[in-house]
């Protein structure tokens, strides 16, 4: 019952977003919504791993990069359709990341996972920038002039891209929603609260985590593929920077980590805050975000999603 009301809430949220361009047709605003939705996919899937599964993985941005490069290179060199590239990117990211990062790290705990994923970020960056693949990936200059999405020979406009990311976002939302409504979600909660007890009651920690890892990586890769065709370029130097990781972190923390729509709320807050307010004090952008984060972690660990709670309890009372 409560879950169904939640689902209704999500559907209304997406409907409002879908109707938005009809009311307010301002290009910059639509662009910001596109960005929020894209980072919202990444942040919410990261939160699925970190907040729900308790896997402190820092490699989410690497999954995004893998997805982006996969789709970008497939479309650019092999000439396949970008929409198929989108799917391929998700599958390749899910496969590669789960084999290279998921399987080794899921046997480890806490800080070891953090370290191994940081190591993975570094190695991936070095791999893309140099050695053999530099000729194909574009090395330091990045992969450029990637064809955009098109339908019937007409390239997508800003609004088309917005609806595309909204569709992808809805699918990701639906996937997360159905995971959280299923028995897997109960398994997560049990594993997070007391892993020894959950395991002794027959919860298979390993396979549960692998499934979530696959799903999380798939959608992150898809978001990466969207990024690459939306902007027409991808550069590992720009994306593997710590400020990107940090901004994603800010989304999860400001929104509220470990509670589902939190990261999405956070991605909207951070994207709009960055462009409309912090834009005027660009030098102080990261320092301000950092201070906001510290204040939130220390004072309101639940994050902005707490506002929804206040709202809900008032309704019941």
């Amino acid at each position, binding site marked *: 019952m409560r879950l169904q009301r939640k689902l209704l809430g999500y559907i209304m949220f997406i409907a409002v977003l879908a109707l938005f361009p009809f009311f307010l047709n301002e290009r910059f605003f639509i662009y910001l919504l596109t960005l929020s939705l894209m980072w919202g996919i990444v942040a919410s899937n990261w939160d699925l791993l970190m907040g729900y599964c308790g896997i402190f993985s820092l490699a989410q941005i690497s999954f995004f990069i893998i997805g982006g490069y996969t789709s970008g290179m497939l479309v650019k060199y092999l000439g396949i359709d970008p929409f198929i590239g989108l799917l391929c990117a998700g599958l390749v990211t899910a496969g590669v990341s789960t084999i290279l990062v998921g399987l080794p790290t899921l046997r480890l705990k806490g800080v070891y996972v953090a370290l191994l994923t940081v190591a993975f970020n570094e*190695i991936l960056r070095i791999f893309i920038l140099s050695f053999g693949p530099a000729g194909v990936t574009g090395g330091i200059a990045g992969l450029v002039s990637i064809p955009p999405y098109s339908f019937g020979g007409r390239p997508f406009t800003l609004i088309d891209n917005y609806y595309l990311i909204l569709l992808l976002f809805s699918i990701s939302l639906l996937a997360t929603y159905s995971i959280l409504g299923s028995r897997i979600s109960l398994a997560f909660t049990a594993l997070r609260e007391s892993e020894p007890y959950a395991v002794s009651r027959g919860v298979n920690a390993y396979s549960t985590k692998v499934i979530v890892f696959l799903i999380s990586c798939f959608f992150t890769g898809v978001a990466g593929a969207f990024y690459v065709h939306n902007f027409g370029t991808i550069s590992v130097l720009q994306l593997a920077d*710590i400020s990107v990781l940090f901004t994603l972190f800010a989304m999860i923390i400001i929104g509220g980590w470990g509670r589902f729509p939190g990261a999405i709320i956070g991605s909207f807050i951070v994207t709009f805050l960055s462009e409309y307010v912090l834009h005027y004090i660009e*030098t102080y952008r990261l320092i301000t975000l950092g201070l906001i984060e510290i204040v939130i972690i220390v004072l309101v660990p639940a994050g902005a999603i707490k506002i929804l709670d206040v709202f809900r309890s008032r309704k019941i009372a």
Partner: protein
Amino acid sequence: MIPADALTVLYSGFFLGSLYAVMAMGLSLLWGTVGVLNFSHGAILTLGAYITWWFLSITNNFTVSILIALPIFFIIGVIADRGMITSLRRKPAALMISSMLATLAFGTVIENFILITFGPRLKQLPLLTNWSYEAFEGYVITGQELLISVVAIGTLLILWFFLRNTKIGMAMRAVSQDLDGATLVGINVNGIYTLTFAISALLAGVAGVLIGSKFFLTPTLGRIPFLIAFVIIIFGGLGSVKGTIVAAYIIGLLESSTLFLLGLFWIYPVEFIAMMILLIIRPTGLFGEWA
């Protein structure tokens, strides 16, 4: 007879190992005692180097500026602990992740503070001594490197003495070994936590001065050293003092020999791969206890 190249690699590994040991000790001490992995360690290190540089530009005396800077490192640690970690400690189950997030944010704040206040231009701490000695054809041991190694080892010895022979040091070890027991015998646990954070920041600051007097100062100076320190404490076993020091020298030697045999570019991949292999063979590190 040992070839000259091997001696060069050994000496360079020894120098790097001493530097890394000071850096990693702070991180390891904090993890062992408080159970917090400090992601702002690298940023505090950078801040330490910059503060010393700033005092130097005022007083023009290196020794004096270090003596003024040391208490400041200590205070940074106290502020970080009292401001963030103390309130996070009320929820012990989430402490590890919440403190990681908080210190990551703190580190970014410090890095950007440095960037805004001091600017992105390269700075350098002066040479302490111009003495140098040509050990053999084409290889010079500089007094600077030797002095840095001596200071690093001295710092470690002082820390060792402090942990072994003073009451406060013993209290710190007691807290890390058995929290309940330490509370029972009347140790002020919260005070010890703050003190540990402060000593850890002090060690980071000292490491910053040492690194800053060898390399150039940039706002991101601490990032790579932090990653290496991270590798070292995991290599040596989390929270083990002996393990950290041994691992620091192993990683130092690994780095210098990789540099010599394969080239600069391979250092980080080799270090990370070595660590992954170690983690697969022995998941708790060299001197870590079997969980």
